[in-house]
């Protein structure tokens, strides 16, 4: 994850073999200690994560409707079905559009807020708190506020009240997909909830930039403002940016709550998790196809993450070691 330190994501624990001297038998052996420390976590991980994953894998090869203990083996039929399902394919497109927009926007907004707050001399803690506070609100609660009080389609919604001052008719923000105002609703909710947290990450990173760099730049004649930002701040934030983008990407993949609550029975703007949820727990109760789709999605996430790592220098710290 880093380019400036040696803590690469994928870098294994440095093998300090020399220290692993067999003193005092079992209880001092590092193998024993390794399992002592990681054991409870790994047991839980196996029971509550790997067993369900395996179960899903199993289900994906069976005709499993209304049951999770199926008996009819269907081979790759579920995979064939899910890959030919237009709703599922559309949801992948939706996600791609969504991620391509929300990831850079959140990145820019949280960086912008961090730069603003970082320059403040008075009331800095106050403003930092204001931007950070939405992190405390759940997606469920935020979606509720957005749906019922800001972007409802009637006269007592805030958005419609405001545009009403300018003589604009009430807009059905969520009901009418043309023009697609629903993206405005979904994007604002997410920006509001997420920006503050990533702002804190950037703020911390900004504070870690050595002051000497700016001084040196000033001596070299760099103008404060855009030039120092472009040639000093931004490169220095590279590690944080990479991490933030990775986290945002994972968050975008896992998008569920606000789409689920805001869009209801729409056929558009559905990310993959909502489609899969509808398939498995919704009207179809088709756990086989749902599992197959989820595993396809997992494979895609792995691919994208690896790809992002390639272009963003993910794990480069490892190479520099």
């Amino acid at each position, binding site marked *: 994850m880093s380019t400036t330190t040696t803590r690469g994501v994928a870098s294994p624990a440095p093998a300090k073999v020399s220290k692993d001297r067999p003193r005092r038998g079992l209880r001092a052996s590092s193998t024993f200690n390794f399992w002592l420390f990681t054991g409870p976590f790994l047991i*839980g991980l196996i029971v509550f994560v790997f067993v369900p994953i395996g179960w899903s894998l199993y289900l994906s090869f069976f005709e499993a409707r209304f049951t*999770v203990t199926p008996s009819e083996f269907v081979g790759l039929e579920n995979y064939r079905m899910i890959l030919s399902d237009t709703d599922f394919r559309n949801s992948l497109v939706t996600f791609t559009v969504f991620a391509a927009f929300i990831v850079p926007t959140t990145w820019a907004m949280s960086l912008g807020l961090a730069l603003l707050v970082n320059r403040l*001399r008075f009331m800095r803690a106050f403003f930092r708190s204001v931007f950070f506070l939405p992190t405390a609100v759940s997606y469920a609660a935020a979606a509720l506020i957005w749906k019922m009080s800001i972007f409802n389609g009637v006269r007592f919604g805030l958005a419609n009240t405001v545009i009403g001052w300018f003589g604009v008719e009430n807009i059905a923000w969520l009901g009418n997909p043309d023009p697609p105002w629903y993206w405005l609703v979904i994007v604002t909710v997410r920006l509001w909830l997420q920006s503050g947290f990533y702002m804190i990450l950037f703020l911390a990173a900004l504070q870690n930039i050595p002051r000497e760099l700016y001084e040196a730049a*000033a001596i070299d004649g760099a103008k404060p403002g855009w030039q120092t930002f472009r040639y000093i701040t931004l490169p220095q934030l590279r590690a944080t940016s990479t991490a933030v983008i990775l986290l945002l990407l994972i968050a975008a993949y896992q998008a569920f709550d606000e789409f689920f609550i805001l869009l209801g029975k729409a056929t558009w703007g559905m990310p993959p998790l909502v489609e899969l949820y509808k398939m498995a727990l919704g009207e179809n109760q088709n756990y086989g196809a749902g599992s197959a789709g989820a595993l396809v999605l997992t494979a895609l996430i792995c691919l994208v993450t690896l790809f992002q790592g390639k272009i963003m220098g993910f794990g480069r710290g490892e190479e520099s070691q």
Partner: protein
Amino acid sequence: MTTTAPDLDKTPAKPAKARRVGGVMGNAGLYLATGVAAVLFLIPFYLIVRNAFMTDPEITGEEWKWFPSTIQWGNITEPFDDVTVDFARSMWNSLVVAVLHTVGILLICSLAGYGLARIPYKHANKVFYAVLATLMVPTAVTFVPSFVLVSSLGWVDSYRGLIIPGLFSGFTCFLFRQYFLGFPKELEEAARVDGLSYWGAYWRVVVPNSLNFFAAIATITFIAGWNAFLWPLVIGQDPSAWTVQVALSSYATNQTVNYHLIFMATAISILPLVFVFLFLQRWLVQGIAQTGIKG
């Protein structure tokens, strides 16, 4: 460790010259921009409070009102008087769940993160990759099997069912590992020379010197625990096992919508987190500043 944490409240590391160039105008612009952004960020909070203290006819009336004509203080107790949803109980459940969730995760994931980062073992790599892989798996994959598993353990409607399956967070373990990789080796080595075992060194040297980071993770974990929705929704079948998020959704999806009640309940559900934030924010920021999150 604490001494190396950047102080985020100190004036920014900018050359004095740069500060002068902007001058008064630049400062005014800066505060204006920040102020506008802050107002936008506060609007949803304002709406929650406004609606919480209004009557329904006022909220749904033809003319927009910025403030309630009379503040309905009586609305505060209404969620607690409601007979269909035991709101107080759901707040309590959320508190128990969020606290135990946080304590459990800190304990289990920090140990594992330390083990992966610092204890030499020839297969540590493989174990770490297995943990990393779970980060890629969306919750939908495991949701139904997890539910069936937990229910066959008889954990539906119990704190166990609400808490335990969420304790094994690959992501938190990963964060701890990243953090411990950067933990100064000298401190541990000194402890080892003093004859402490891994276990002893961990509790006596590593943990006490990492409290900022633990606080940061605790805050994030507490928020996640408090705000979790889908899992508690399905696990909490009996209203006595509902968390506050589930109770909130029950107001929202009820067949008759009661605006002021929904928003008052929302306000009350957010309040504890706001307090947690105001108290822990400083540690959170410092903790993050030294984490593996930033690299």
